[in-house]
């Protein structure tokens, strides 16, 4: 039983929909700047979504607003309309920020007086990402929010794939969403992995990541169900692998065996060999450790001629949204037959034996891989196929 990708929706600093995103990355636009959503003394540039679609904006629920914007586009693309109550629909979405009650104004009032307006608590309690999306479309299948840090979106897609394969549902809404927030900005800053300039994944002189925000949503369906509904599929989600480093809370395992296992599992799940992969959309954050480990694993698994890139130079690191956004880019690139230049890369690192593509590049082939690495030592990979 194969699983079809029937709808793609994306919102990021690069654009409000897939078309705008692809146009921006084709033209090398990097819409980063100082944080404006909140006040901070930190100087690091971020990739913000400048204006949310008004109709979809949920008051003080930025992650949900981003998710609903991408969801609308994905449902439209799939030819579906909410409510989906006539179908067995599951919802599996990744996030990080939206899973935490971290409202600074609320907490400031609480610690000052021992009491505070509970509106942020109410918003939080009504804002579990998967629950709120499931509720909005009347989904009647499983719904779960994955909070696996930076691999949340990719793991969410993999879990949704498992649901469809095991017959738990016919359709799944999956991917990830995250907003830019002061708390993770301070946190990543404290870890010394934010860059003062635009990030440069895999570059010799890379100096860290830039945070971003956005959402990437895929609608995936069981092939038999999709064919009855729509006809011939054009994209498939064919494989998923996820393995842990069992090593460190914040640093990747230096030998990269967790990531390698995740990629190899995704390939075997898809029934393909490394040679069948025409490009890899790498996690590529722009931090010293991540890119070194990931570059080494990609060359080990795919050889030195593999075409690969990181799209974080266009979107920033969108944390729980990254896996969804990057899966959306990967699917769109396969469909369109090109990948963009890996933004920020200029100079090869002697410690990484392969280099990402430096210009918009045509691709020939049917399979691509998207990877995610995360805090906590999670590694995840998916395989997408062009029909």
């Amino acid at each position, binding site marked *: 039983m194969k699983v079809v990708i029937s709808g793609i929706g994306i919102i990021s600093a690069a654009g409000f929909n897939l078309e705008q995103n692809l146009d921006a990355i084709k033209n090398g636009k990097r819409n980063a700047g100082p944080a404006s959503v909140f006040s901070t003394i930190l100087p690091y540039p971020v990739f913000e979504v400048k204006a949310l679609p008004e109709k979809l904006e949920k008051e003080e629920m930025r992650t949900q607003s981003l998710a609903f914007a991408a969801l609308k586009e994905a449902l439209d693309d799939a030819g579906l309309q909410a409510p989906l109550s006539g179908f067995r629909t599951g919802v599996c979405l990744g996030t990080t920020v939206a899973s*935490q*009650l971290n409202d600074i104004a609320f907490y400031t009032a609480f610690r000052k007086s021992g009491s*505070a307006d509970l509106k942020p608590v109410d918003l939080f309690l009504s804002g579990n990402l998967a629950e709120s999306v499931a509720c909005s479309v009347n989904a009647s299948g499983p*719904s779960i929010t994955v*909070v*696996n840090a930076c691999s949340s979106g990719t793991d969410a897609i993999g879990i949704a794939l498992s*649901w469809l394969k095991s017959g738990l549902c016919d359709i799944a809404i999956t991917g990830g969403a995250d907003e830019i927030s002061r708390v993770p900005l301070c946190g*990543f800053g404290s870890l010394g992995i934010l860059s003062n300039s635009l990030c440069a994944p895999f570059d010799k002189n890379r100096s860290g990541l830039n945070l971003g925000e956005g959402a990437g949503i895929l609608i995936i369906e069981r092939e038999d169900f999709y064919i009855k509904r729509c006809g011939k599929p054009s994209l498939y989600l064919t494989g998923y692998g*996820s393995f842990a480093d069992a090593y460190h809370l914040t640093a990747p395992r230096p030998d990269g065996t967790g990531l390698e296992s995740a990629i190899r599992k995704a390939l075997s799940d898809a029934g393909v060999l490394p040679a069948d992969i025409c490009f890899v959309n790498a996690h590529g954050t722009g931090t010293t450790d991540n890119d070194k480990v990931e570059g080494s694993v990609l060359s080990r698994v795919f050889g030195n001629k593999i075409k690969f890139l990181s799209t974080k130079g266009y979107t920033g690191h969108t944390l729980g949204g990254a896996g969804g956004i990057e899966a959306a880019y990967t699917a769109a690139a396969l469909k369109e037959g090109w990948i963009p230049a890996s933004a920020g890369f200029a100079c090869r690192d002697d410690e990484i034996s392969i280099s990402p593509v430096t210009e918009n590049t045509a691709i020939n082939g049917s399979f691509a891989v998207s990877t995610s690495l995360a805090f*906590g030592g999670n590694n995840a990979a998916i395989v997408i196929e062009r029909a």
Partner: protein
Amino acid sequence: MFISGIGIVFTRGRGIDSFENALKEGWRAPSWTGSFPAYRVGQEILIDASLSKKIRRADRFSRMAVLSAVDAYRDSGITVNQSENLGIILATAFGPHATTFSFIDDILDYSDANVSPTKFSNSVHNAAASYISAILDSRGPTVTVTQFKLAFQNALILAGSWIAEGRCDHVLCGCADELGTVMEYACKMKLNIAKDGKINPFAFSDSPVSVPGEGSVFIMLSKEKGSNNYGKVTETSFFQNITGKPDLFIIDTDGMSGNEKDYKDIINYGSLIAGYSPVFGSMLTGSALNFAAAALMLKNQVAYKCIFQDNPFGAKLCAETYAKNLDEIYCIKICRPEIKTIVKLQK
């Protein structure tokens, strides 16, 4: 999938034996450290000399999760030779929120540029699963999931998928939630807290009382039946009517849903009914503790008494602890009439 091990950290101790003793003993008054009664986990429960080095930087949330996960693994008696064959799923409603607020304290007190990286990395929801994976050298799929209504049930479904797909042979599947200061405030303002510290699980009230709790449970789920076996999970379903007649229903009535009227219909099935929230408190992830009670009952073939003050609808309750042939138990959680989950366990 088979239930091969259970680990638990709750208000009355650590380990499945503590839980069994609590079920036998019955109700004990909660603590009154704040302005309301709550089933808190004492700091002394979270000390473990054998793990102290590995969890020295871990916060309270992670410690609860680690200790229960390690205990479930040990309880199973299984040694997973291929570390990639063991998966981990941690479900939580609120995650390590106390650490998040402690991190925000740093922002407020010392500025955005002078905060603790250790606090930040521990405030991330999946920190606990990361500790568990490192301690057990478990390299299989490891995910943390969050949900307010049906976190444990969704985690069970995922564990079943992983085992069915062959992603791993064993899954440590658990829940953890803590009761930090801010959460206590939210509970005080939003819940109908029982002033006498007594949850009333069988009143089936439309304004039920609760007594907030905290803790963690991990269940070792295995593809094959192991030397230690509590029974098996045969089905986890959503949105379906109850079919069949189990020996016992265990219901998640703890006051957290705000309305428990719909549980009343379970009386009509004629089976024995139990619910153990008065032992561990009200938690959004409390289903996992009731599940642990069900597994223990199947293994020991004992029905544990449940604690209640009144039984206005004449439910056939498990009023005493006694030896009983138990082949099948259904664990039921109803959020709204249309959101009902059934987890079926068999001997």
